[in-house]
């Protein structure tokens, strides 16, 4: 097996850190690492950065269709997405991680995303939608002020218009928006435009004011090592 030098290692290091190398190239990289502390440190540091990206993904998988719904809601006008549906799972990952970015770019008032992402902090929150201890769907929220919320709800109630409110711990309420609920199901996403740094409840009410379901979000917190 031919050797590679530090320059070649550094060219391939990002792919190596992302586990994107296979076969001979990977073997050459591993061989080089055994005798080169400088490249060992580089590989270790890049792998740490790659791990940080994973922390942006929520702890539960959204439902099928989430990714296309979110992209449709937040994509920039005029931009065409030609990604095949067979790779929807990858699109989902991208939507989850970049959802805040897409909102920020489509909203002139929030063109510069807040630089407050902190290592070890989960930036997309998940909570089940519950009514009388019944699981009715899922809610996802990016708690930054340029963040977004996504709702997937299935409930045995007549067609209606649902209002989504966020209730802060001290009792204040922020109206996020309304969406149609038809045939027992709805998928909906919207920009929240409010920063949430503590536990909060998303409340879904029908047009008569009856609560359909609630999701209790945990506070953003550090992920245990």
């Amino acid at each position, binding site marked *: 097996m031919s050797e590679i030098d530090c320059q070649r290692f550094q060219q391939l290091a990002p792919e190596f850190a992302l586990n*994107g190398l296979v076969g001979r190239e990977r073997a050459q990289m591993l061989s080089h690492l055994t005798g080169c502390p400088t490249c060992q440190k580089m590989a270790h540091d*890049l792998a740490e950065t790659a791990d940080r*990206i994973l922390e942006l993904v929520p702890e539960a998988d959204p439902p099928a269709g989430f990714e296309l719904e979110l992209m449709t809601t937040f994509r920039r006008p005029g931009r065409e997405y030609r*990604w095949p549906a067979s790779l929807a799972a990858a699109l989902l990952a991208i939507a989850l*991680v970049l959802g*805040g*970015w897409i909102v920020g770019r489509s909203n002139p008032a929030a063109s510069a995303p807040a630089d407050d*992402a902190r290592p070890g902090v989960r*930036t997309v929150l998940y909570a089940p939608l519950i009514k009388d201890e019944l699981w009715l769907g899922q809610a996802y929220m990016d708690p930054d002020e340029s963040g977004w919320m996504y709702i997937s709800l299935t409930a045995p109630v007549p067609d209606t218009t649902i209002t989504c409110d966020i209730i802060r711990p001290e009792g204040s309420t922020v109206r996020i928006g309304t969406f149609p609920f038809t045939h027992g199901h709805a998928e909906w996403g919207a920009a929240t435009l409010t920063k949430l740094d503590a536990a909060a409840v998303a409340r879904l009410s029908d047009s008569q004011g009856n609560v359909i379901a609630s999701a209790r979000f945990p506070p953003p917190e550090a992920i245990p090592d």
Partner: protein
Amino acid sequence: MRAALARLPAEQARAVVMAAVYGMTARQVAGFEGIPLGTAKARIHAGLLKLHAARLAWRGDNE
């Protein structure tokens, strides 16, 4: 990290997320995006290095 991702060119951010979150190789990213393999490699390379630089800068500012 999300702020750093937001500053990347969109095509680099997509490539890095596909590789880091979904475990796609450069060849798979290339097929997914309909771009040459070399372009996919370049996007992954540039994207991850920029994120790494941003993380080091953030760490430097906060230590």
